[in-house]
């Protein structure tokens, strides 16, 4: 193992910037985020980066490493050839604040549009097999990597029309909750724009929590919208018996 790693890191803001090269010493088990921290402590204390847990649990450290969207804290250096230069850029879909930090505030605005959980009256018991399905969606750590790769947002920048995979996952978690009684189909169809997703599955590929975003969240939601607007009677029956 070579004991130095060469990195190229984006330095700059939304208007202008460049890739700057740094070399840092390499320790066993190091991840990309460790290397970025080394750059801060040795070369450039003002290098901006977000992180919190350093264990893949908080979703703060998303970036594009050698062009691949990733959590930097879970990306081991030994996965790259010893002499490789590792390039790190901020996520492309969002405006850059500085260096590796981008402005993800749009996501928080979208979240506000989603009506809260509304618990049904009476009995609160439900079983693990029912919890399982919802828990998959609730694993989301809001890293926004799926938002970053979704072409509807990335290439077409349709942020006003489409909420992105993260929030479809969130809606799925609410709609399939065994105790929830709210109906979000209208919202899904219109404001959240579920129809704009054309099932390319790029989001599923990058999800660090391995949530089957497209198959388990988006497709069932699309079906729900179709049911609701084209088979209203069937929809009412299903809603009443909460068989989803």
């Amino acid at each position: 193992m070579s004991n130095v790693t060469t990195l190229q890191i984006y330095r700059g803001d939304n208007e202008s910037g460049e890739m700057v090269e740094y070399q840092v010493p390499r320790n066993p088990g190091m991840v990309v985020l460790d290397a970025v921290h080394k750059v801060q402590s040795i070369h450039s204390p003002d290098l901006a980066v977000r992180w919190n847990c350093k264990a893949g649990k908080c979703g703060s450290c998303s970036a594009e490493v050698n062009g691949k969207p990733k959590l930097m804290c879970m990306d081991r250096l030994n996965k790259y050839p010893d002499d490789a230069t590792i390039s790190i850029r901020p996520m492309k879909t969002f405006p850059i604040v500085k260096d590796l930090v981008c402005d993800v505030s749009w996501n928080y605005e979208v979240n506000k549009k989603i009506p809260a959980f509304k618990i049904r009256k009476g009995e609160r018991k439900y079983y693990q097999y029912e919890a399982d399905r919802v828990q998959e969606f609730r694993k989301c750590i809001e890293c926004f990597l799926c938002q970053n790769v979704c072409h509807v947002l990335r290439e077409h920048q349709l942020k006003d029309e489409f909420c992105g995979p993260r929030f479809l996952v969130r809606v799925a978690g609410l709609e399939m909750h065994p105790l929830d009684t709210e109906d979000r189909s209208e919202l899904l169809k219109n404001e959240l724009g579920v129809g704009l997703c054309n099932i390319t599955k790029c989001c599923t590929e990058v999800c660090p929590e391995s949530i089957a975003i497209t198959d388990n969240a988006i497709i069932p939601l699309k079906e729900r919208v179709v049911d609701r607007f084209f088979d209203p009677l069937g929809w009412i029956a299903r809603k009443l018996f909460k068989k989803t």
Partner: protein
Amino acid sequence: MDKYTTLQYDVIIIGAGGSGLRAAIEASRNGAKTAIICKSLLGKAHTVMAEGGVAAALANLDDRDNWKVHFRDTMKGGKYLNHWRMAQLHAQEAPDRVNELEEWGAVFDRTQDGRILQRNFGGHTYPRLAHVGDRTGLELIRTLQDKGVHDGIDVYMEYTVRRILTSEGAVSGCLAYQRETGRFTIFNAKALVIATGGIGQCWDITSNSWEYTADGHALALWAGAQLLDMEFVQFHPTGMVWPPSVRGTLITEGVRGEGGVLKNSEGKRFMFNNVPEMYKGEFADTEEEANEWVKSVVANKIPKVRRPPELLTRDVVARAIRKEVLEGRGSPHGGVFLDIASRRPAAEIIRKLPSMYHQFKELADVDITKEPMEVGPTCHYMMGGVKVDPETQESTLTGLFAAGEVAAGLHGSNRLGGNSLSDLLVFGKRAGEYAAAFAKKMTDYPKVDPDQVNETVKGSKKPFEQTEGENPYSISEDLKKMMQDKVGIVRTESELKEALGELNKLRERANNVKVGGNVQFNPGWHLALDLRNMLDISEVVTKAALVRQESRGAHTREDFPGSDPEWGKVNLIAYLRGDAIEVEKVPLPIVPPELKELLKD
């Protein structure tokens, strides 16, 4: 002062972890105009990392459980230095707070009959931790966050509070800079709730994130509030030890709750030889008995035998591990072995402990369904903090409230696992409620003193004006190493005194710290400012550790190895006199007779 934006609120909450969010929801519910300020993005606070579960005597698995047993376990775990009233309220109210989360959409793991599942944890007599696999904190924070969003609470993300403003002996708000722009904003408030979490960044090997730079502890101290129990820093027995880049990262106690065992290099389960006097008779004596217990638990039956000694309290297990390593029976990288692979089938391990499985696989190339993990103690939790009134959570400074890890009293000298998440909910709610009530009584906003604002802004910019000076990272690294060496799990007078000397030198270096670049999102500058908190609070911890001449809970003095009944009658408080940090003994609150009765074995 006109240069700065001023925002006005009835109640401002500093911190958006479980306690801050819960406080905000309650304040807002009680009609207060409420805002939250936090250093990170919403949803990324430490609470998101909590794994094992939230403790509440729901008695879903064992109907012998109730608040009285939870109260007793908590007091015993804290070696009776806890504030009895907080321990009582906590045990009584935790079940309601957990059920309420379910009402707000949280999806806990289920029992076979469809109720909230609970797991065993160290120091809890019965299975008591409601959980979601090993990502309970994420569930908790997301539930509260989404609830808060709909309650119309304003959130100021990525703002760091640098000073609590006061006027006429009471709180008048706080001053914060926005990380992105470096600009300062004045938050003028009738009441403030500090919910900033812990101080673990003062140590080298830690499970805590960059946020844990002791901000709330320091802000309260500087503003004139008293701190309590500052000698008690919890080292969690099971942090990762290898590879170096993940040293300190937490391995949930849930691994042991699910049947994992600790072994030394000779393959021996050493915890059997480490049961302290006060827990004698409560834990299994033999491996057979311990295994029998695990078997019952896994089968969802009420165990008829005693639990494995691996589930002793954290202080005990951490010291036992340290001893094994010091006596030459450690693992290759200076820890011991935690083995779940030989105890449970692979599929169950992956199901019950998914993030542990993932964490080891990705970060250490270890498959925990096949091999044991190497583990060692890691700095984890601060029992000490702002001294508060047990009912209202108000500090000794009028209008300043505190909740969560930054507040003290509930856990005494050692916290039980799972008792933090419940603490956040119970006392977060109380803090929000009473802060709102306090604000309601005031007709006008308190005055903001421009001198306080100008002084703090000026002081904060100093690192940019330095022409010569050190990089903040090297000072922070040296501070952590020093605290790890001299104010760690086991302490002695000579080392503590050396530590005070070292802190003075570090402070001098920190006074001349220099940062480059500009005020926009500049982590070097942020750290330069955080250093001031860390240094002051490290000094408080060291001084308190020096004063308490006994070993109790998380505080172990090599030169005073036993617990001393006289020391069992006092807490230590810390406060500022001028610029000097003073530490003083205060008598323990007296436990009423009916509760004392519960503490008898």
